[in-house]
């Protein structure tokens, strides 16, 4: 085991589990539970390298219970995964860490990421589930038989996590033929690795592509006009939630605010300003309650994208005087707003680095992508 390959940190830890190393026996013996305790505090990249040190370490880190504990810790401090799309070239890209896989070049990110898993889909009906932290992915089997490409354009794909069954599900709402007036629904379950088809009249309510969606407490909420279409991921049942009339048309994305469904809207009238409202269970009834005021950019709420946790709202906008996208971080507790300039059009996803690997996941392999100018470039990064 060379120092150069594994670094001082490995030797330091390796020493302490009582192994004989270079003829010296070390007195300190570290039981597995303590090893786990330390591993839980280390980053995913480091843990992936630790797996190849010895069998004990491999078994501790691969243990599903460990993966679950690591996941729970990671979810407590979400970060952002920033993916710079290759097709948005022309502007120089900033500091990137991981190469964006060529396989996903034509894909769009679907919904949010859950437990470190990202869902991607492209124009040709291909859907992928990917964990960028461990570099593994799987391509979903096709849901429908070949359809004319013009119909593919009206597909709505949505991704969510069913915590009750520990199942990652993908919903596909499609027009099967040009005579359909309402979309059919296909639900994919990672556990069964198969699609199930059904119809629901609520699909009539889904206008156009729907807007944003989020999973809160095992229920998917899809914003569609002034209603929220709900889908209980476990029972696989649709529902509908009305949004108060006074919200008007000026509403933000639907958010997960500390375990409740939230919408930010701008009120006109006596309580001028931008407020976050959440849907909560108040004595057995679901009610919208006003939660807090958002003091960043009171003129508009189009910048608001998602809630990261720990008081931070994240968003994007292109200010008037500029042509670059700015990332915005607004802390509602301190009422501070921070801006970061991003030079490329990109997808930004609320993210947590985890070791979660799904059935059928295979490694990506390092495939560099090329820019339009022909130079090799890396894509995709994460910031804390």
């Amino acid at each position, binding site marked *: 085991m060379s120092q150069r390959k594994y670094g*001082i*940190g490995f030797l330091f830890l390796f020493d*302490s589990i009582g192994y004989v190393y270079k003829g010296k026996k070390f007195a*300190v013996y570290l039981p597995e*539970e303590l090893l786990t305790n*330390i591993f839980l*505090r*280390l980053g995913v990249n480091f843990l992936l390298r630790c797996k190849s040190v010895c069998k004990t370490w491999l078994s501790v880190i691969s243990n599903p219970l460990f993966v679950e504990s690591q996941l729970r810790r990671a979810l407590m401090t979400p970060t952002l995964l920033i993916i710079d799309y290759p097709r948005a070239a022309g502007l120089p890209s900033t500091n990137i860490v991981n190469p964006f896989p060529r396989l996903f070049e034509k894909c769009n990110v679907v919904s949010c990421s859950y437990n470190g898993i990202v869902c991607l889909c492209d124009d040709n009906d291909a859907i992928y589930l990917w964990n960028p932290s461990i570099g593994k992915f799987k391509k979903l089997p096709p849901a429908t038989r070949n359809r004319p490409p013009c119909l593919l354009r009206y597909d709505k794909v949505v991704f969510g996590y069913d915590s009750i069954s520990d199942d990652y599900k993908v919903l596909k709402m499609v027009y099967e033929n040009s005579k359909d007036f309402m979309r059919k629904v296909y639900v994919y379950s990672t556990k069964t690795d198969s699609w199930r088809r059904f119809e629901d009249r609520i699909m009539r309510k889904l206008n156009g592509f729907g807007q944003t969606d989020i999973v809160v407490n095992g229920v998917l909420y899809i914003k569609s006009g002034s209603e929220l279409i709900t889908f209980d991921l476990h029972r696989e049942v649709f529902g509908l939630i009305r949004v108060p009339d006074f919200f008007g048309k000026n509403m933000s994305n639907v958010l997960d605010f500390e375990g409740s469904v939230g919408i930010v809207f701008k009120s006109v009238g006596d309580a001028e300003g931008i407020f976050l409202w959440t849907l909560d269970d108040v004595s057995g009834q679901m009610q919208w309650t006003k939660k807090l005021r958002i003091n960043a950019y009171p003129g508009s709420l189009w910048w608001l994208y998602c809630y990261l946790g720990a008081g931070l709202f994240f968003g994007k906008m292109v200010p008037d005087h500029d042509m670059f996208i700015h990332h915005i971080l607004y802390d509602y507790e301190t009422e501070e707003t921070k801006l970061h300039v991003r030079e490329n059009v990109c997808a930004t996803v609320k993210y947590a680095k985890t070791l979660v690997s799904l059935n059928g996941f295979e490694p990506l392999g390092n495939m560099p992508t090329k820019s339009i100018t022909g130079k090799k470039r890396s894509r995709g990064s994460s910031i804390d």
Partner: protein
Amino acid sequence: MASESKMIMLRSSNNEVFEVEEALAFESQTIKHMIEHDCADTVIPLPKVSSNILAKVIEYCKKHVTSPKDDNNELESFDAEFVNIDKNVLFGLMSAANYLNIKSFLDLTSQALADIIEEKC
């Protein structure tokens, strides 16, 4: 603090005896359990903890028990300084924290070790 607090005797692996107040000893769930369930005599044997480690554990518990609850900054700087030590001692402290079941101390020492490891890589 009660004027007559009960004293507990703890014996380290190398037979050194430490006398501590009960409130301090009760920071350790292991010791607390032993005393509450009458599993120990006058002296509690701790065969897995050497005297220099035990001395440091007592020092930590003493600081945390006697500090006023709202003085977080002072406790934080005490903790930071406390784990700024030789890694072998740190490992010993972590093992002791685990054996004696002192959660805050276990978190402190584990985190300190994790920080050192990630820093060195």
